């Protein structure tokens, strides 16, 4: 991985984190090269997964699943230029599988706790750090509940666009569908979230954060 050799994705304007030669070596079965790729993308992918699935405790597990899939599917990558969309596609698929499993499991979540339990948790958190963590947790739960009004696919698509900041061109490469179809789907998903958000907002005031 040499920064000087890092290429720029013309469509996205983002720099490739690794060079094509390293990807080629990893495709050829070089485990050291694969390790370098993981090191280079690990943080970014874990961050994306964290925001896609909204469960910090499961992030590493899903992240490992992404790189595991990458390891066994690298030989299917046609050109190194498509590496990043390919990696994002694997991330999207792994996050989607996780969200579906999670929905099936119907685990007990913070959002499902009773009001009394939340009040007790609030009372216990007194320090500044704890308050900040609590606010972040509330924000996470709010966004999570808003995104929860969407299907898993739409949730992931909207998160990639609105939170990850991916461009339509990048999404087009990841999803392999045309830009107009993506725009329509994004618009509908956003409208649905907006409606849910409006439902939370008290009359005449901003929605609770």
């Amino acid at each position, binding site marked *: 991985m040499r920064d000087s050799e890092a290429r720029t994705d013309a469509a996205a304007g983002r720099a490739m984190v690794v060079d094509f030669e390293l990807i080629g070596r990893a495709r050829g079965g070089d485990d050291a090269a694969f390790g370098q790729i993981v090191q280079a993308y690990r943080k970014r992918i874990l961050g994306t997964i964290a925001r896609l699935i909204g469960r910090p405790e499961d992030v590493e597990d899903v992240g490992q699943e992404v790189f595991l899939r990458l390891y066994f599917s690298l030989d299917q990558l046609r050109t190194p230029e498509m590496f990043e969309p390919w990696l994002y596609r694997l991330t999207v698929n792994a996050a989607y599988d996780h969200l579906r499993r999670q929905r099936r499991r119907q685990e007990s979540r913070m959002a499902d706790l009773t009001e009394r339990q939340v009040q007790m948790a609030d009372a216990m958190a007194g320090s500044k750090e704890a308050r900040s963590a609590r606010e972040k947790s509330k924000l996470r739960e709010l*966004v999570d509940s808003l995104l929860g009004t969407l299907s898993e696919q739409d949730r992931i698509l909207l998160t990639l666009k609105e939170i990850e900041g991916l461009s339509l061109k990048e999404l087009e490469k990841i999803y392999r569908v045309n830009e107009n179809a993506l725009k329509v789907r994004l618009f509908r998903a956003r409208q649905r979230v907006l409606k849910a958000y409006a439902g939370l907002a008290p009359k005449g005031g901003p929605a609770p954060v």
Partner: protein
Amino acid sequence: MLRREPEAPDGRLEAELTQLFAQYREALPDPEATPEFMPKLWRRIEARQSLNRDLRRLAQGFVTAAALVSLVIGIFLSLPQGRVSAFYTNTYLEILATDQAQDDPDVVEIVRAERISYERTQ
């Protein structure tokens, strides 16, 4: 250009939602992986490789067994069988030809000739 639905909430909520997403992005920065991340990943890769190897070995065993069974069946079928009636071994045409041979006009003629000579002696 996408048209806004008539019942869509106003622009204020739109802006708030955009801001909310931005705050969410800030509240969830890219996390650092634990030191166990890479060792665990390699263990999972090795486990999958070993599973693949086992499956491949199983498939190869199955193919070998199938080839052996085919060979045994082939040998068994090629071995000369005990005397079997012509009815089971001959083709329909061969059997038909045999039957026609029995109705040969020469034979009929001879029988008739004998019969005639017999009648004459009477």
